[in-house]
């Protein structure tokens, strides 16, 4: 069966520090991968998605970047964190081309920028 791992679960970082969140998927090949952010008490905002290695699309301009160095690995990064980067970050995967398949979310990373 497929599983998705996301770490760390929580993170407290000072303003201006770098960020690296990692997500890996097991049990499937060539998944579509997504990064969502959820501000406190808010909805899910799509940040990045990827349909293959090295293929990244950004949904909103921001202080973050994403990379997909391997088929089932998705990384969210920042060179210098801002206070506004605080939030709950969720990685998700979906079967490639599967518009009729569900999104499967990781357990999320709660990031607090101080």
């Amino acid at each position: 069966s497929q599983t998705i791992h996301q770490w760390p679960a929580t993170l407290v970082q000072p303003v201006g520090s770098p960020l690296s969140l990692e997500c890996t998927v097991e049990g499937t090949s060539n998944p579509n991968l997504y990064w969502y952010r959820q501000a406190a008490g808010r909805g899910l905002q799509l940040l990045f998605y990827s349909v293959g290695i090295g293929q990244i699309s950004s949904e909103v301009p921001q202080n973050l970047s994403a990379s997909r160095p391997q088929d089932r690995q998705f990384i969210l990064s920042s060179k210098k964190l801002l206070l506004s980067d605080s939030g709950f970050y969720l990685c998700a995967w979906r079967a490639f081309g599967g518009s009729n398949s569900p999104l499967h979310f990781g357990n999320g990373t709660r990031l607090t920028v101080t």
Partner: protein
Amino acid sequence: QQPVQSPQAVILREGEDAVINCSSSKALYSVHWYRQKHGEAPVFLMILLKGGEQKGHEKISASFNEKKQQSSLYLTASQLSYSGTYFCGTGINAGGTSYGKLTFGQGTILTVHP
């Protein structure tokens, strides 16, 4: 464009029913429903893919009115475990160039009391 959910919040007693609506200003190809418990990742409930389709999951069901560009989630005989935030996610493309992107509504907070 983000779909609009209504109501924003619902408070129920166990055994009562609720309806959550999701409307889009764009033509929809698919509608997903997810439930999120506080501090956890969203969990998939169901997908509706074509106009008029209805699906059920225990005492939770949903309908999709493609013409009206809206979907409704029906929770009957609510249980304490139904508490959480419900999100609809809409796909506006058949999957060719959208890469299975889902745009989520702002969420509906459902609270079930004993």
